[in-house]
């Protein structure tokens, strides 16, 4: 049986795939510890570029950018999670209604429209209604494209929950809100957290849309890094990249454990 699943060459291909995915990241990590200012010659192990990033002359700029990124990702993911949870309840526990498939298409619209088109459209929109670009415009744009990413895990989770839980609660005269709050929401929690984490990382990751809609003097980490990279890849960029890489790894690990926890509870 297991022999039937095995194809020669598939293991080497997997190894190749992993090497390809990891090699550039690992090399950047290694070189971020390179003492030499020449970025390709190895000059010994050193933390000098990390010191540069955190305490150097441009530290304030990167700190502000990181702070902006964090605030935006936090708020956008929170809003998107709330909106997506509501939508999932309506789509999966709201019976059938006219415009249901249209609603579903609308929720997924941010996934279907290429990012650069979303960026252009949002810029044109804010500019033609005369709305001053700033942190708020970035936030609004991020909430919108985070909704489908939050929706997918939440809806998947809700679909796996039997309807008799909330029906039982409502048979006992719990209000709809209490049935949700006390019965359904705890059951949905792994999905909600997974949705939040996914939306958070998607927001943190975004460059194009942010670059189009950001206001004067406002940078997020990706736009700050992009601006710096345009003038050449410096070692401090590698140090920042390594830090961001670590944050991402932390997040995957977190969501991995949330998932496992959710599966165990089932």
């Amino acid at each position: 049986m297991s022999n039937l699943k095995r194809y020669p060459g598939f293991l080497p291909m997997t190894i190749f795939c992993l090497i390809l995915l990891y090699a550039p990241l690992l090399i950047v990590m290694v070189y971020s510890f390179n003492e030499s200012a020449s970025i390709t010659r190895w000059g010994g192990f050193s933390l000098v570029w990390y010191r540069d990033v955190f305490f150097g002359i441009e530290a304030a700029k990167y700190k502000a950018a990181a702070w902006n990124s964090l605030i935006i990702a936090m708020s956008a993911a929170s809003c998107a999670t709330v909106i997506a949870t509501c939508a999932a309840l309506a789509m999966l526990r709201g019976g059938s209604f006219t415009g249901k498939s249209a609603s579903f298409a609308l929720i997924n619209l941010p996934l279907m429209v290429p990012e650069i088109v979303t960026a252009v459209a949002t810029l044109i929109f804010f500019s033609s209604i005369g709305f001053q670009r700033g942190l708020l415009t970035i936030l609004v744009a991020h909430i919108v494209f985070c909704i489908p990413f939050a929706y997918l895990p939440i809806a998947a989770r809700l679909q796996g929950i039997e309807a008799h839980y909330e029906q039982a609660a409502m048979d006992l005269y719990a209000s709809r809100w209490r049935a949700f709050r006390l019965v359904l929401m705890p059951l949905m929690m792994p999905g909600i957290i997974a949705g939040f984490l996914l939306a958070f990382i998607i927001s943190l990751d975004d460059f194009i849309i942010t670059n189009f809609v950001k206001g004067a003097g406002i940078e997020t980490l990706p736009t700050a890094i992009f601006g710096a990279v345009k003038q050449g890849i410096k070692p401090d960029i590698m140090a920042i990249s390594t830090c961001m890489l670590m944050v991402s790894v932390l997040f995957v690990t977190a969501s991995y454990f949330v998932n496992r926890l959710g599966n165990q509870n089932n």
Partner: protein
Amino acid sequence: MAGLVPSSGKSAAFAPARIWLMLPSWASIGFFLLLPVLLMLVYSFLTKEFRGGVVWEFSLSSYDRFFLDRGLFGDEPPQIEWTYIAIFWRSAWQAGLATILCLIVGFPTAWFIATRPSHTRSLWLFLITIPYWVNLLIRTVSMKFLIRDNGPLNEWLMAIGLIDAPITMINTNFAVQLGLFYSYLPFMVLPIYAAVERYNFALNEAAADLYAPKWRVLWLIVLPVVRPGVIAGCILVFVPSLGAFLAPDLLGGAKNWMIGSLIEDQFKGAAGNWPFGAAVAMVLLSIVLVVLFIYARSHARASEQ
């Protein structure tokens, strides 16, 4: 994108509140995405002001410029303008090639992972997901660093004596291709993995009992069953590749423009021609919607069968 279209609701417990529950998503996406896209369509028919900016005056000049070449002084008989069609063509084949390469590498990987015993499977999956979660900009910058003329890859190839002088990879179509392939590879692996994981291997057993060769089993029996996953993976790679900006901009330089770079230059660069940028974005969006429409049709037909 093969999301969860709820066919029949298990429960209608929240039916009375569904309007209010749907309202936030209707409002946010409708107002901040659907309306802006329509506005973009309007913008593509406006006139560019001389020094930049937009005049609210109907004009076909953006589309005219996209498709027709009227010479330097604008008074020659119009010919077909190949420049922008060429950029679209380059984007299409780059995205297509990236999709094929991702499929060639991604399918075996997904298959391999899905057929691991369950305790090691999650570890393999974990390894594939990490790069997917790492910032796309950082991954592209890493690739740029790796393949530059004096970069680690060239140094290493020279050190082992495979080449004598650095190979120029940066600022070529090859670099862009590598960047796209590298960026979107996880998008191919994950949906195929999901499809293979659900696959019923009893089919293979039956085929083996009938002495069908393994590769034919893969081609004739497995592939049709996991096809939805494969197609979803292809779309998830092709669509973002088509409109990619970071890979062509950072790895391709100014001579290997793709659609994304062309659009970006109209809004963020010196060109400052918003109506033309809106028109190009509109053409891109139309192509993507056609691709998605064909996908949805074939998906619907497949589930009818």
